[in-house]
């Protein structure tokens, strides 16, 4: 399995009252959507893997929002942030934080709804369609401008998911001897075979790699491998 991952590093704050970690599957890559997305003029779409990978940086730092009816996007209800995005197989997985204190209704919804009932949806801008006459549009380029938490059957992709607290987002503040500035740093990693643990924390190997990178680069900021 090939996995491409990218994350925004946030300083770790123990028991933060307004951060509830979440994970989810935002979309599928190289697979047609179950239904036509809004704005696709009735066409189902395929987000190519290449386009998704190219667009991963645009996804980080974008907000997750929700609509009170849980059936779409409401850009004025930004209830969280995406800090990590991985393409694992055909799934584009995301992780991040919800502002749980500010938006208790989201946590309430997650507690009340049936397991697996919630999904996710992306919002794209400046998408390029390979052939607009095709029955299924192939998106070869796009920019993620946001995401939404919604009922899974309201999403154009049925196989999306959203869960609270399943994993914690990667943060490297506690890993370094030197305190990391609050400003975000970013990594871009390519994992191969068995590296599906991109969302797991406290892995010695990653710590070693990270510390090595810090020592060699000697600076905070965007880091790419």
């Amino acid at each position: 399995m090939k996995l491409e991952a990218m994350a925004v590093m946030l300083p770790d704050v123990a028991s933060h009252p307004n951060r509830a970690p979440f994970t989810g599957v935002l979309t599928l890559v190289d697979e047609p959507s179950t239904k036509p997305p809004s704005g696709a003029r009735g066409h189902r779409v395929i987000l190519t893997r290449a386009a998704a990978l190219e667009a991963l940086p645009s996804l980080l730092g974008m907000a997750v929002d929700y609509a009170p009816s849980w059936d779409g996007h409401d850009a004025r209800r930004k209830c969280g942030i995406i800090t990590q995005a991985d393409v694992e197989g055909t799934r584009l997985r995301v992780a991040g934080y919800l502002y749980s204190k500010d938006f208790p209704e989201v946590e309430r919804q997650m507690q009340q709804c049936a397991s697996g009932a919630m999904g996710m949806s992306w919002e794209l801008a400046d998408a390029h369609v390979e052939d607009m006459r095709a029955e299924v549009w192939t998106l070869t380029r796009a920019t993620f401008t946001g995401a939404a938490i919604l009922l899974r059957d309201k999403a154009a992709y049925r196989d999306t998911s959203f869960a609270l607290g399943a994993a914690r987002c990667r943060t490297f503040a506690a890993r370094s001897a030197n305190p990391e500035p609050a400003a975000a740093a970013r990594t871009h990693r390519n994992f191969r075979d068995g590296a599906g643990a991109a969302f797991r924390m406290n892995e010695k190997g990653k710590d070693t790699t990270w510390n090595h990178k810090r020592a060699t680069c000697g600076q905070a900021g965007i880091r790419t491998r």
Partner: protein
Amino acid sequence: MESQTGDLRTGGDTNAMSENLERMAERMEAAASLFERTVTQLEERESARTGEVQKMVATVDASRESELQKKLEAAEQQIAEMRAQMEAQVETRGESRIEAQARSARKTVPAATAQLLAKQGISTLETVEAGALDAALSGLSLEQRIAVKAQLLRAGVVG
């Protein structure tokens, strides 16, 4: 008196002006919506040419679904109306057929013939026996007998 006329005139002018304004507002609204539609069409044409889509959201296209839902509802209504029309036509046809049958079943003969038959002891025309009819018509001339029998035949009294 003059002032009243002036007031009336002013009132009339105001009404006319407000009507004019309303008309203008309507026309401007229509022009604006036409302009919006044109812009949308131009954007769609442009995006179709370049393959660019400004915004896309991975939610089920509710507008399209509602549009399809409306079309479905309209189609269902049309089907219901057509079905009702067909049923009404069938009913009308059935009624007219029944009427026709009833009409054909109704055995009427001219009043003179009926009176003649009554005098001969045949008061009902539902069932007339051949023997009784011949006996009743025995007093008539051959031409009269033929005429009466022809009328009874047309009326369906005799086969």
